């Protein structure tokens, strides 16, 4: 007789399956042995290993995202633009499930395959230090988009999330000149990019009679993100503005506002350049969005990796951070921004 075993066993097996997944192998760039010169980075204490390769070495570079998302398509376009310009092939890897185990496996595979440099968006900065440091002993490691400052990474390239939060906060103050109630929607507030953005917002809105009445997480479940927005509209009848910290939150909050018939009454501000977000700006459901520059993250990370491999830490600015910048997109500059996006994606 076939019987359904206990749910606990099934859930445990399900977890095991996910835990074992993500055994993908690294890219297929041709291998060439090199004898790198390892020197400690001048700017860091304790010393971070830097690997400088002799001129003429065939350099193998890789870009590792933290999940599979639209955002990374723009970064991919930046990587392709670098490839076209320099002729250096860059392996682009995306952890399908966005788990730490999967990303660690990718890093280890790239080390095994003899890569010379990796640009990585770290999923869990504090939990992956051992893996990152282990990789940094064999190759040049830089962080992009999501930083792991406690690791031996050589530099960080990406959005300064606190600054992005400041910009978003200023826009909120502009949208609510008399103050009001604000609700925050986010995938996971424990993630560094999320809480740094929130820190920036909170810093700016202080003293402007603006109160954050709800901070709702959805763990990247889109339906939950929408129902969170609906529930918050019910719970706070005097809500003035909804603020989405993850790329999908803005459009889903806007859908809830539209469904509740509160267009115009509740303002919406979003993050990133998802197509739905840009569409909602044209219809007036979203007032503005803070866009990052993933294209430059892709392009610059490859450029700096190549330069580090050739010249060591001389190629890295001090402090070792490159801000790719953020900007506000609203109804006024939307058309120009969309043109710029189309031009970027043409590189892919």
């Amino acid at each position: 007789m076939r019987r359904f075993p206990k749910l606990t066993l099934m859930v445990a097996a399900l977890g095991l399956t996910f835990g074992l997944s993500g055994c993908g192998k690294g890219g297929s760039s041709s291998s060439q042995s090199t004898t790198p010169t390892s020197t400690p980075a001048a700017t860091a204490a304790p010393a971070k290993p830097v690997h400088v390769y002799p001129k003429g070495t065939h350099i193998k570079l890789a870009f590792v995202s933290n999940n599979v998302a639209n955002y990374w398509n723009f970064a991919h376009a930046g990587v392709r633009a670098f490839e076209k310009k320099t002729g250096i092939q860059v392996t682009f890897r995306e952890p399908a499930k966005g788990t730490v185990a999967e990303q660690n496996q990718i890093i280890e595979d790239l080390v095994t395959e003899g890569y010379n440099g990796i640009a990585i968006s770290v999923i869990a900065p504090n939990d992956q230090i051992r893996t990152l440091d282990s990789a940094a002993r064999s190759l040049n490691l830089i962080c992009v988009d999501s930083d792991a400052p406690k690791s031996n990474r050589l530099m960080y390239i990406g959005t300064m999330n606190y600054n992005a939060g400041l910009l978003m906060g200023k826009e909120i103050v502009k949208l609510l000149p008399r103050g009001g109630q604000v609700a925050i929607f986010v995938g996971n507030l424990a993630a560094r990019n999320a809480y740094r953005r929130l820190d920036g917002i909170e810093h700016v809105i202080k003293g402007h009679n603006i109160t954050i009445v709800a901070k709702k997480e959805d763990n990247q479940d889109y339906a939950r993100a929408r129902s969170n927005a609906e529930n918050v509209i019910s719970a706070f009848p005097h809500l003035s503005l909804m603020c989405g910290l993850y790329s999908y939150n803005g459009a889903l909050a806007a859908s809830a506002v539209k469904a509740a018939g509160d267009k115009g009454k509740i303002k919406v501000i979003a993050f990133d350049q998802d197509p739905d977000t840009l569409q909602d700006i044209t219809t007036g459901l979203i007032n503005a969005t803070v866009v990052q520059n993933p294209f430059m993250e892709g392009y610059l990370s490859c450029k700096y990796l190549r330069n580090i491999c050739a010249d060591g830490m001389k190629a890295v600015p001090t402090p070792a951070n490159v801000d790719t910048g953020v900007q506000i997109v609203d109804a006024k500059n939307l058309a120009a921004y969309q043109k710029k996006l189309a031009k970027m994606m043409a590189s892919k």
Partner: protein
Amino acid sequence: MRRELGIFCAVVVMCGFLFWSNHDFGKAANLLNVSRQAAMLGIFAIGSSFVIITGGIDLSVGAIIGLTGVLIAKISSPSVHCLNHPLWVGISIALGVALLIGLIQGLLISRLKLQPFIVTLAGMLLVRGTAQIITHGGTLGLGTSPLINLSTEGLFHYGYHAVLAYPMLMFIGVIILASYLLHGTVFGRYVFAIGGNRDAAQYSGIPVDRVETLTYVISAGLAGVAGICYASYIGQMTYYVGNGYELNAIAAAVIGGVSLRGGEGSVLGAIIGSIMMEVIQNGIILFKWVYHSAGHREVFRLSSNWTYFITGAVILLAVLIDQLANILNKRKRLKRQAQIAAAKQ
């Protein structure tokens, strides 16, 4: 019926408590939102209940929900990277694919005697992977597709809200059909018989393989219907939409008295379980406690961090109360039977 009544009472108590805590809970807009959310969950929870009652399990429903939405967006959305065919083409193909997945899984389980857990787990990964390939790991928006209005529009309006939104109407249709199928037909009796004692069902001439296969088709088909609603509800599809929803369906069914051992359960139970799941989510946001501290009026609200804890606790509490009531009833019955036997002697 007694089990469903117990859980229903628990839901009523929860709603009463939430209304006491925050009168906004009772506002029409909120109740209509919760009912729509419960309707979407209920559609595929009912499908999963069919499988669970036979003693099986379907882990692929969440992935099918995602794939259905992705297919509809890919085929019918006017957005970039989509094919912009008429909506009925997209919906028909998506539903057809969902039914086909259910049929294949059902046949593998019933004919090749493979474990339902393994087959539907593999199915889940394959389906999710297919959605990921179609979306290239990104998002497909529904853009200006008329489907986008399905989740909010409907019959009879109260202010800006449809009293019977289309997902709710679909849910009512599913309830009527599923209730008739499970409780009013020979097929339904077979489903219970297989879950109660598979070998006995086989020996008594019940077409076990066919019935079992059909339950997986029903489950996948209803996941497809739910997928249409979710696609409309969120308007942008990624391959991980529906991730983990299979466990929500199982939880809703189990809360409503569907036994994981098979042979027990009802459509009504799955409905009540779904309502409870969504009331919990809604309640975590709406619950508030007003108190006074140092002369100031303060409002306590629950943070999102409590969501999993409270959901888990309420599910456990609901099934514990239900099980305790069952044990007490059983004891009472045995005692009564002993008294009757003693009186006869």
